């Protein structure tokens, strides 16, 4: 256990679990987990078949670690994390990027929004909050994604691809991700629309670093996402 973590702070959030999907994130995962633990959050790291020491580093930092035997993708890892958290009695689940681009302080805002708005999903929006150093091309892609989301799901969102979300137990149980890889972000929104459960957008901040930008999605990925969603629509 990391000596910097005070285990008694967990009592403040006994049924809140933060889920990080991580693939080859040894460089960042220790810092991310330590920050979450210092804030008192139970943390699950789903090591998605990493070739580096992501899992052991996360465990040493105080996270619950679930290790995929092979790399399946971020969508599959999030679903695994949600299954694990639900099996442990989670009442609120938060998905949090392992890149270190999200702020731990925003978790509280999401959870408070769930309670205040009586919603089952609180979705982070960088366009309601601060998006530091957001490259213009990425801004354009994200804007196009919101239009796509509105057309395909009817959800009126300002940021449709933000990895920072909070879900109630009921909300998480209503979602089943079948898109293992990049298209999972769109699939989550489609599942939210299908569930007809209430949702709310919450301003959050994203810190773009050289590391997160290198790991982030590109314009060409958008085409692959559309193909993935189309292919899923052809099967039952």
């Amino acid at each position, binding site marked *: 256990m990391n000596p910097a973590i005070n285990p008694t702070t967990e009592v403040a959030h006994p049924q809140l679990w933060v889920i990080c999907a991580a693939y080859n994130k040894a460089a960042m995962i220790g810092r991310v987990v330590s920050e979450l633990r210092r804030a008192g959050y139970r943390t699950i790291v789903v090591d998605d078949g990493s070739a580096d020491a992501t899992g052991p580093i996360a465990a040493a930092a105080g*996270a*619950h*670690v679930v290790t995929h035997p092979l790399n399946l993708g971020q969508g599959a890892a999030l679903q695994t994390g949600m299954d694990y958290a639900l099996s442990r009695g989670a009442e609120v689940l938060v998905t949090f990027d392992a890149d270190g681009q999200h702020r731990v302080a925003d978790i509280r805002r999401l959870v408070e929004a769930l309670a205040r708005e009586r919603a089952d999903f609180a979705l982070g929006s960088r366009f309601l909050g601060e998006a530091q150093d957001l490259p213009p091309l990425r801004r354009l892609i994200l804007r196009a994604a919101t239009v796509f989301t509105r057309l395909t799901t009817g959800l009126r969102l300002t940021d449709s691809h933000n990895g920072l979300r909070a879900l109630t137990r009921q909300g998480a149980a209503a979602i089943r991700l079948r898109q293992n890889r990049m298209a999972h972000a769109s699939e989550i929104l489609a599942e939210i629309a299908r569930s007809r459960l209430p949702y709310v957008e919450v301003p959050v901040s994203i810190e773009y670093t050289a590391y997160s930008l290198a790991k982030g999605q590109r314009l060409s990925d958008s085409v692959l996402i559309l193909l993935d969603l189309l292919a899923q629509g*052809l099967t039952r």
Partner: protein
Amino acid sequence: MIAQIFFSALLGIVFLYAWKEHRRSPAVAALSLITALAGLYFVWVPSQTTRLAEFVGIGRGVDLILYTWVAISLIVILNLHLKLRTQLEMITVLARAIALAGARGPQADAVGDPSTPSLPTAQWSKEVAAGSRVSGRPRA
């Protein structure tokens, strides 16, 4: 006549294939059925191919057959892709069951946390065993 019987038998197999695929992918089944019907039509009324080709602006009946063949190939590739997706979903369920069975919590949680339930691995094992139900959505 020999060629017509031979190709009719082949297209009959396509018919059966489309019927078999109907439950998994209605879109692929519909495309296969349309293709097989068009093929039967051309086999038994070959004089119509050139007329139809001219009607759709292709020119020769042979070219129409060629283009149709390309379309059939694309449908087959699409179907293979969909089958691979289904298999990947089954692998995902299996890998998830393995991962959850081997999950480990931090030392601080293991001590003094008697409420921690055991993992319901049986649920995921059932999903794996169900196989064909992998793509289903276990919602209430």
